[in-house]
């Protein structure tokens, strides 16, 4: 068996004339958190959707546990143990918490044609899953149209965690969350990693990405600028990668702030860096790694 659970080889994805992804190579390891970085429209969501079985790659190869494979549906990906939190959450407002939680993967009881949806157990699991995210559900049978944005996001995450046996994909999971819930999500990500799952995380928040991630892959306008191990990059460099090397002037003040914060913990005089220097550093690393 391969060392990687998922491998992409020269994967491209086109939508008509739009090139959403071009020649992407990526490897995802069990027990690692793999962070996808990139600007808005860089192709992050498109990339994870090809991993989730929503989009078929237009070109290139998808390998699962070392074997080439074509995912034809999200259902197939779920059967393989790949669960996804989509950016738009994929929830149905008119349906209840429990029905959303188990949508497509219903918990059944009984035999043959008399199999039925085991609502009671399902309710319990859904409530427990949300409690782990820090959300107290009032009534698991209530339609989620009445839930807050963050509560819905936690529901989508709890669902993916419950069904992701091997790979957990999170597309901006903390976008709508409060401080406590964001911390919970990161905790859950760390827990999943400790359980040996592979986690693919998309976020625009470096404070969320840096502490939990083991690897960073940088996307820019549909192309990969390379994968970096955490050991090889600093938080500042990550932040810079996320900005796509642009608007550095604006960033400088922010960087100065990090510097102060970092030098508070470790007397890091070596963090004195100027943005241009960091950019060259990361480019070199891209070339080496």
């Amino acid at each position, binding site marked *: 068996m391969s060392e990687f659970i998922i491998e992409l080889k020269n994967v491209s994805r086109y939508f008509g004339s739009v090139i959403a992804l071009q020649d992407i190579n990526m490897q995802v390891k069990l027990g690692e958190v793999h962070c996808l970085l990139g600007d808005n429209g860089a192709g992050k969501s498109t990339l994870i959707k090809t991993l989730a079985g929503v989009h078929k790659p237009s070109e290139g190869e998808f390998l699962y546990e070392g074997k080439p494979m074509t995912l034809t549906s999200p259902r197939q990906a779920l059967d393989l143990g790949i669960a996804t939190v989509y950016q738009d959450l994929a929830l149905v407002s008119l349906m209840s918490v429990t029905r959303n939680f188990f*949508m497509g993967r219903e918990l059944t009881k009984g035999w043959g044609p008399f199999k039925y949806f085991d609502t009671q157990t399902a309710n319990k699991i859904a409530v427990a899953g949300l409690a782990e995210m820090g959300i107290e559900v009032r009534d698991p049978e209530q339609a989620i149209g009445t839930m807050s944005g963050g509560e819905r996001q936690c529901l989508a995450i709890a669902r993916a965690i419950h069904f992701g046996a091997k790979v957990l994909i999170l597309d901006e999971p903390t976008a709508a969350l409060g401080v406590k819930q964001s911390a919970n999500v990161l905790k859950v990500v760390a827990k999943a990693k400790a359980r040996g799952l592979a986690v693919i995380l998309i976020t625009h928040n470096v404070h969320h990405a840096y502490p939990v991630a083991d690897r960073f892959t940088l996307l820019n306008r549909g192309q990969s600028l390379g994968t970096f191990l955490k050991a090889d990059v600093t938080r500042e460099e990550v932040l810079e990668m996320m900005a796509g090397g642009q608007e550095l002037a604006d960033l400088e003040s922010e960087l100065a702030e990090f510097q102060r914060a970092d030098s508070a913990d470790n007397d890091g005089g070596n963090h004195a860096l100027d943005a241009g220097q960091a950019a060259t550093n990361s480019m070199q690393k891209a070339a080496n790694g």
Partner: protein
Amino acid sequence: MSTASIESTTNSRSDERIREVSKIKKLLNRPDFGAMSGVILVFIFFAFVAGDSGMFAADGILNWSTVSAQLGVLAVGACLLMIAGEFDLSMGSMIGFAGMVIAIPALYWDWPVWSSILLAFTTAMAIGWFIGYIVVRTGLPSFIVSLAFLFILRGLTIALSILFTNKTIVSGVDRVAENDWLAPFFGGEFGTGFFTWLASIGAISTYNDGSPLVSGIPMIIVWCVVLAVVASWVLFKTSFGNWIFAAGGDAKAAKNVGVPTDRVKIILFMFTAFCATLYASCQVLEFGSAAADRGLLKEFEAIIAVVIGGALLTGGYGSVLGALFGALIFGVVQMGIFFTGISSDWFRVFLGVMLLAAVLFNNFVRKRITQAS
């Protein structure tokens, strides 16, 4: 705050953010609440207006419940499909078509009746599959696709029956169906022994020769009940039911989490075709004739019943029981107006008003459920 203290607070008293919701509020949130109250109102109204007209005698009851059950069979199919977010406007034409598919082979080609019944079900469901396939494949609104089939099937029925029989009404199916094993399941009656017994103890009125005025329950009523119970169970208690709600609520979201929405929709188009054929079979085998223009406008009546029953036209919400109530309101009012001798034009006025009221009410309910989004 530690987890232990959170738990102890939630255990010691229920969530402080739940307001006590009255039973009535809960009832109001049911999709079928509107139709349920409609049924009660309609019954009260006709109990006063037509109480002594025989509408609530055994044969009167049978009369309006048969009409309701006929529509109910169609409404159950239309209901599941509407919850899945689609329409089937070809149901009415399918009734005419299926009726002819039963009658022509049985009468003109000497097929045993059971085989022509099976042929009707298979052909209809194959057409249902085809309609569903076009809808999910092209992504076109089912409204348009099934409207096309409304015309195609009606035209085909008339053209083919003229081609094969030179007529558009064929009768005599009851004669060839006499000793058929399958025909009684559609054209027969249920509980005849029970009604004879009721007559013998004088509980129901009889003809002069002592045979009961009501000899049994038409099979369409039995079918309607069976279909409604099964459909309701599937909708609320099974995985497939969850898929129906998901497909109608948000097909893209449902697909992304692994719900085979295309398959669900195709199966439900086959189910509406099945329901239409069931209606046709009962009609043809009970009355012994088939006509090419049967089932005219039935697709709209079914949709009206479903909407009165609380389903949202946009999908994702509704109940089979509601659709059944919708059909019952329909049947009771139609027959009640007949019994009271009011001009039947008023029936249409009533129908329109009822439909409008139901849609307004459903819209209000939907806003309550999704107000936070």
